[in-house]
Each structure stands twice: as C-alpha cells, then as structure tokens.
C-alpha cells in the first residue's frame, strides 16, 4: 500500500511544483506582452502619422502637381482615419487600453483634404479617410492640387 501511495504523492507534489512555476510565469508574461503591444501600436501610429504630415508639407512646398506615394504597414487596431478642419489627421484606435485617438496637426497654412466628396469635406474640411483604416499594407498618395485657386494637399489611398 505504501509503495503505491508514495510515488503517487511524489507525482502530485512535482506536478503541483511545476504548475506553481508555469502559472505565475504565464500570467506575468501575458500581462507584460499585452502592455508592450499597446506601446508598439502607439509607436507605429506615431511614425505613420508624422510621416504623412511631413510628406504633406514636402509636396505642398514643392508646388502644384507634386506627388509622393507612401507605403505604410498599418497596424491592427486602427478603426478609422479622418481629417478635421483641413488640418488634423486623426486615427481612431482600439487597443487593450480601450479606444483612443492619435492626432497629427499640419501647419495652419497647409490645408489637407482627402478624396471625400461630401459637403462636410468640401465646406468644413472634415473629410473621411477610412480607406486607410484596417490592418495591412497601404499605399498612400499625397499630392499637392489646386482647389478653386487654393493649393491643398490631398491624401488618399491608391490601389495596387
């Protein structure tokens, strides 16, 4: 009887010890990883947003007709992209921390628009740019165009 019970108890103790190591390690690793993911997401959005605004500035000062196509790898978690008041590029983000916005400001003298043809975009400068949302590779056309005698920078996704 004792000969059977002893290895069984030893087996249980070893299993408990192994579980006691694996469970907390997994918990700590999981929590740390999810927080790192949020930091990486913010960092990627920051890089993409600044890149678009810097490029818009470059094409604006290069004059009408100048154009640069950016290829960016949009991370998972970007649910919408829009332009507000012709100068704010806004990314709506959903992450482990909930919903958030990342806003990038163009200079007041450099109006930005998209290919949105709604009245809100034409009259108030609030343009949708939802094509850029969603995970994956995006080719973004940034072009200086003349709109009714005013030089503006149009940001839009191009296929292929």
């Amino acid at each position: 009887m004792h000969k059977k019970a002893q290895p069984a108890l030893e087996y249980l103790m070893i299993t408990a010890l192994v579980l006691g190591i694996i469970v907390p390690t997994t918990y700590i690793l999981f929590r740390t990883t999810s927080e790192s993911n949020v930091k990486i997401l913010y960092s990627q959005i920051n890089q993409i947003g600044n890149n678009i605004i810097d490029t818009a500035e470059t094409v604006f000062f290069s004059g009408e007709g100048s154009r640069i196509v950016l290829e960016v790898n949009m991370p998972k978690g970007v649910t919408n992209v829009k332009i507000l008041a012709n100068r704010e590029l806004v990314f709506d983000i959903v992450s482990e921390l909930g919903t958030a916005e990342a806003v990038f400001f163009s200079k007041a003298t450099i109006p930005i628009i998209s290919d949105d043809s709604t009245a809100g975009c034409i009259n108030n400068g609030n343009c949708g740019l939802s094509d850029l949302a969603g995970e994956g590779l995006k080719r973004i056309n940034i072009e200086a165009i003349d709109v009714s005698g005013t030089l503006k920078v149009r940001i839009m996704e191009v296929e292929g």
Partner: protein
Amino acid sequence: MSKSQASLEFLTTYAWAFVGIMVTLGALYYFGVFDFSRFLPQECIFPSQFECVAFSFVGGATDQIRFRLVNNAGETINVKRYSISNDLPIPLSCTNPSAFNGWLAGEERDFAFTCSGGGFIDNERTEAEISITYCAPATAGCTTGSAVDHTLSGKIKAVVT
C-alpha cells in the same frame, strides 16, 4: 478485516495530509504569496504624443494620483476636461484638476487627482484609466464647440505608497 483497516488508515493518513496542504495553501494565499500582480512592473502608458515622464500614487492622508505629461503633439492645446476611473466594483472617484488653456508644444505639465475608492489603499497595487479631452486652439471650432475635441487615453498601474 485487514483490508478495510488498511483502507481506512490510508484514507485517514492522506486526508490529514490533504487538509494540511490545503491549510498551508490557504495561509500562503492569505499572506499574498499568490498575488502575482505585485511582480508586474509599475507603468504609465500614454500615447507617444503625450509621453508620461513621471507618475506616482500617493497614499496616506494625501490620496493623490499624480503624473507628468509632456506635450509632444507639436501644437499648443487647450485641456477641456478629465475623466478617471478603473474597472473595480467600486471604481475610483476623484476630484479633477482645473481645465486650462495654452499647453505649449514641448512643455511638461503636472496633473494631480485627489481620489478615493477603486482599491486606492496604501501599499496595494491598483490602476487608473485616465481620459483627457483637449483641442488645438489653432483649429477652427476649438474654442466655440466640441467638433474638434479629441480624447487622450492613458493608464497607470502602480502601488499606492
């Protein structure tokens, strides 16, 4: 008879062993040995545009959540309102600092919220989810409405000290 006696002795011995193990585990749990969250780092996570450069949960009689953000948005902004909470059954309830205008690009600002509830207990780890509503005065509509308002969200996980 000898078989049933052996079975009973076996059960009696290992039932006591089992009870002993359970009591030991209970004691370890009571003293917080299984509170693995205390091994996690204290963190303040905000978007890169509003980097969190310092933070603390001040306990004692002060009971304040304090943090310092730097405006990396490259734009002067107006802070309109705040919201702070957490996921606990009795969430954090805080007295917010005043809204202010003219947070210059590159400038560091300190924020302090006097809080209660939400697990804000000395030497305990807790977390706070913070939302700050702001707008850029250089954008048309910032001072006259909420159409160009934005929400900055962050989270702080720290031990109240």
